[in-house]
């Protein structure tokens, strides 16, 4: 049975990775999950400088989903490299660093800094986080700006570059093509869908940041549709995510066109989820006589 897939230059033992921001820096979950079993660990989004993030409350459960407004709190690339990377280097698993910046220069500088470090195997560029001030979201919603910022980052790194797309757009295929043309080795989607929760009694937003990003099973139908649309539009591999809770969900993403999947909110619900999902994919392949996971990719019969 072959579970290995390629994402750009990255050869993954299996097509299951963690979704950025839901698995800390890997350490937190190492107690529940054998990190060596994972296709890749994608760490919490990093920026050049540490960030404080948004005021609490930052988490609100919604029906079959959750809103988060962490606000990209992170320890900064410097501390990550010093304090967190050594732990991750102990494992054979690929490490993908999710990063972001407030300007094209910051994006490039962050990518440059990360590219020199031993133990970082790929970069995931977050152009889509919905928790930042208004102007910022233009990186992920205007295809020309997307093209520009991805091109700039492409110039400074030889690492596999995954561009993470926002679902908060009219036409995800156009965004995907812009990133592909600018040199992305792969695309990941979806990031969270912007949402909001209100307390009827206090008349206040339930999140400190007013709005937040929706994730979890509630968004799976939207994520699956977008993966399928992007699969039809581009040639580069796709990392699909959004509400994957079990192996069957993951298989659906492969069929829609994802070469790999990422597991996010499910980690919170069941800390051992990602291991169960990998086991479940193997079981599915055995039960359904699928010798190579690549056979599933984009195999939707329409």
């Amino acid at each position, binding site marked *: 049975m072959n579970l290995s897939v390629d994402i750009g230059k990255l050869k993954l033992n299996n097509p299951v990775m963690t979704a950025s*921001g839901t698995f800390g820096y890997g350490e937190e979950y190492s107690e529940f999950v054998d990190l060596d079993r994972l296709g890749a660990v994608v760490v919490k989004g990093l920026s050049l400088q540490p960030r404080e993030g948004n005021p609490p409350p930052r988490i609100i459960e919604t029906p079959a989903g959750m809103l988060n407004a962490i606000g990209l709190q992170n320890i900064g690339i410097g501390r990550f490299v010093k304090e967190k990377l050594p732990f991750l280097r102990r494992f054979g698993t690929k490490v993908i660093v999710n990063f972001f910046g407030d300007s094209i220069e910051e994006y490039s500088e962050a990518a440059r800094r990360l590219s020199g470090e031993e133990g970082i195997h790929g970069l995931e560029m977050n152009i889509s986080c919905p928790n930042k001030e208004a102007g910022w979201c233009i990186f992920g919603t205007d295809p020309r700006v997307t093209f520009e910022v991805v091109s700039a980052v492409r110039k400074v790194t030889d690492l596999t570059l995954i561009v993470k797309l926002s679902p908060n757009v009219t036409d995800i295929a156009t965004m995907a093509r812009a990133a592909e043309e600018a040199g992305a080795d792969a695309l990941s989607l979806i990031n969270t869908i912007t949402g909001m929760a209100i307390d009827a009694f206090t008349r206040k937003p339930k999140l400190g940041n007013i709005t937040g990003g929706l994730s979890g099973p509630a968004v799976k139908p939207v994520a699956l549709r977008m993966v399928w649309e992007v699969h039809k539009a581009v040639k580069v591999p796709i990392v699909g995510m959004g509400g994957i809770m079990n192996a069957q969900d993951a298989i659906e993403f492969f069929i829609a066109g994802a070469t790999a999947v990422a597991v996010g909110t499910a980690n919170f619900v069941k800390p051992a989820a990602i291991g169960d999902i990998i086991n479940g994919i193997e079981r599915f392949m055995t039960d359904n006589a699928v010798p190579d996971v690549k056979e599933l990719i984009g195999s939707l019969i329409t």
Partner: protein
Amino acid sequence: MSRYFKAEITENISLNKDYSLLTFHPLTSSIDPGPGQFYMIGCVSDGGGSPESPAFKYVYDPLLKRPFSLFRRTDKGFQVLYRIRGKGTAIIRDMRKGAVVDVLGPLGNSYPMPPENKTALVVAGGLGIASVFYLAEKIAGSGGSAHIHYGARTETDLLMVEDLRTIAGTLNISTDDGSCGEQGCVTDMLGDFLAQNQTAAAAGVIYACGPHRMLEAVSVIAKERGIEAYISAEERMACGIGACLGCVIKTVNGYKRVCKEGPVFRAEEIVW
């Protein structure tokens, strides 16, 4: 030995319409909890069926596990004292003996035990009692004794008082409406106690859990009198293990995670 395990419900007693006491017994070996630590409990039970049931595996509302303080340990397992608030706790209330739940814990840090030369001053507001009971019991068990101040809105919100009496050095009770104990708030009662017990005040350590306002008042009292004070905080949680950065609280050293650096903080550290 894992902090993530399945547990069997061995008892689920309704104390009154709003409060229940759940006891769960880990089905695999688990880790010893400290006072002030908490568990996150999945709100889908297998309904007495099997954990392989689609109802257990594919129902995603409620989604996240719910955090509950360790109330105490008995020979039947770990106990949590809980209030029926929303759908998650309503589902837990309806779980029967024998049902199997998904549990994560013990999580967070613990209340530090008082040094030998110090007296524990325990302050609980409402359900805050759930977080400090085990501490008081431990103190009693190690030969010490705690002065417990326990306030609630009204008599029916005072829980497990008889059990509390057996482990308390002194137990002072107040209710907002005077339906039981002193009328007034528990922090006033604490203030009076400290004014009257200069020795306790001088050699005391405060442990407090309860509503935000109460904790703030306790921390003011502690600061004024120069008493070391620990409070247990609450925030919305997703992961419970420090990964999501969802449960932060503002401290003088920046945001800290209630599930990891907390739930117990030194009172002076919190930005109220």
